[in-house]
């Protein structure tokens, strides 16, 4: 599903943030991505969700060499990927409903179907009574659930989570991990970036470790 071959990445004329990264993630796999702050976890995720292009190396996503794809062809690939951002990146001027509906509207789904899907999902994450609430009026935990709902509403083939447990207590972190494991069992490939190495170790799942821009498999 995801294949990196000798991928390097630098911003502008700065030093290389990622060096010779080689990676091969199978469909349906679950991997933690660990490493200290500044190790390059977010940069690696940005390359996977096509927010940046590598400065060198080859990336294959969904069996397609992205360097050979035209810009227009990247939008459909992005729709197969869900991302949960550490800072949620919810749009404050939109309701919880509209935030979750965003990926479906971008994909051009009919409004009636959007209404049904989003309502069901918000019920599933326990926010049925917050459909019209704006993010600033919600708690951190509620915002996080909206962010997760937005990431999974399209049933993406690949789900990336960037420090989703960074701002929650241990109990909530565990609940989130269970939620992602459930999604993984339904066939979604997961990459879960965290600096919480204990949680990653205890899960018994695949671990990728980034240190000084170099990736190793643990």
């Amino acid at each position, binding site marked *: 599903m995801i294949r990196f071959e000798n991928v390097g990445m630098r911003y502008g004329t700065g030093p290389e943030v990622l060096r010779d990264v080689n990676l091969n993630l199978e469909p349906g796999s679950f991997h933690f991505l660990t490493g200290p702050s500044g190790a390059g976890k977010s940069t690696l995720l940005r390359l996977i969700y096509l927010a940046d292009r590598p400065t060198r190396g080859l990336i294959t996503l969904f069996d397609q060499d992205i360097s050979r794809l035209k810009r227009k062809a990247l939008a459909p690939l992005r729709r197969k990927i869900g991302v949960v951002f550490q800072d949620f*990146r919810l749009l404050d001027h939109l309701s919880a409903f509209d935030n979750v509906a965003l990926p479906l509207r*971008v994909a051009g789904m009919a409004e009636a179907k959007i209404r049904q899907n989003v309502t069901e999902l918000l019920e599933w994450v326990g926010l049925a009574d917050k459909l019209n609430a704006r993010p600033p009026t919600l708690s951190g935990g509620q915002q996080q659930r909206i962010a997760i709902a937005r990431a999974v509403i399209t049933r993406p083939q690949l789900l990336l989570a960037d420090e989703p447990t960074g701002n929650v207590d241990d109990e909530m972190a565990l609940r989130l991990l269970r939620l992602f494991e459930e999604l993984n069992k339904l066939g979604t490939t997961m990459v879960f970036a965290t600096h919480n190495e204990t949680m990653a170790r205890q899960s018994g799942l695949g671990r990728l470790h980034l240190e000084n821009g170099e990736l190793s498999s643990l």
Partner: protein
Amino acid sequence: MIGRSSNDIPLQRDGTSRMLPWLIGPTVYLAALAIAGMLALHGMLQNWDRGLAGTMTVELPAGTAEPVVTSVVTLLRTTPGIASAQAMDRAAEAKLLEPWLGNSVAVQELSLPRLIDLHVVAGARPDLPALKTKLVAAAPGAVLDDHQQWLDRLYTLALTVEATGLAIVLMVSAASVLTVVFTTRAGLAVHRDVIELLHGLGARDGYIARQFQREALRLGFAGGLGGLVLAAATVWGLGHVARATSVLGEQAKLLPDLHLVLWQWGTLAALPVIAALAAMITARLTVMRALARLP
């Protein structure tokens, strides 16, 4: 009721595009005035052209004896292509001068040249050089005026005024387009985070551009409509002033008649739509160009 409550990009909430109607409004106002002026001038020229088409004037020196005048009229009437020739009497000549000199007795006593009004047969082309020779032979000092020189000068003046008007329209349009470009760029910068998020969710460039172009269309039309209303009031006011200042009669107005007919008002009414469409297309092209730089 659950449904779409707002645009994905909160363009209506930031100040970057708020000034757009205030910039497009004056643009449409100036363009409407320039076009109204051009249309009015064009109409006046057509009136003059129609009034003078097929007419000529023969001017005989002051003091020309009446038998000479009569012989010239006879010569003209027998010239092929001339439909009619009529010598103006002193009363008619005095009436022509009345708007400028009044109708005092002194005017009646002025030594005025004699004028003969000619009408040409429709479509006919009299041999004017031959006619001029015959006229001078019959009445030394006679002058044949076919008004062409005067009309040519008027046309040159009108063309200059029209070209100036067109240049004004083009300049204010270019200024408007640049305004929309800068406003759209400011909007792109302000909403960069939202745009990157939408882009990351798989939004095509057209999806993002549509939100900017809708807003530009709305604001462009609002500004254009305001400008048009002001321009209409100005044109109406100037027309009113033009009629009010025609103290010397229809022939001696201080301002040209700014009375527009229905189709000319229709042309002006199209300006807000054109401005809105231009703003929309400009916004779209600006956004598409900027988004092309994203990966």
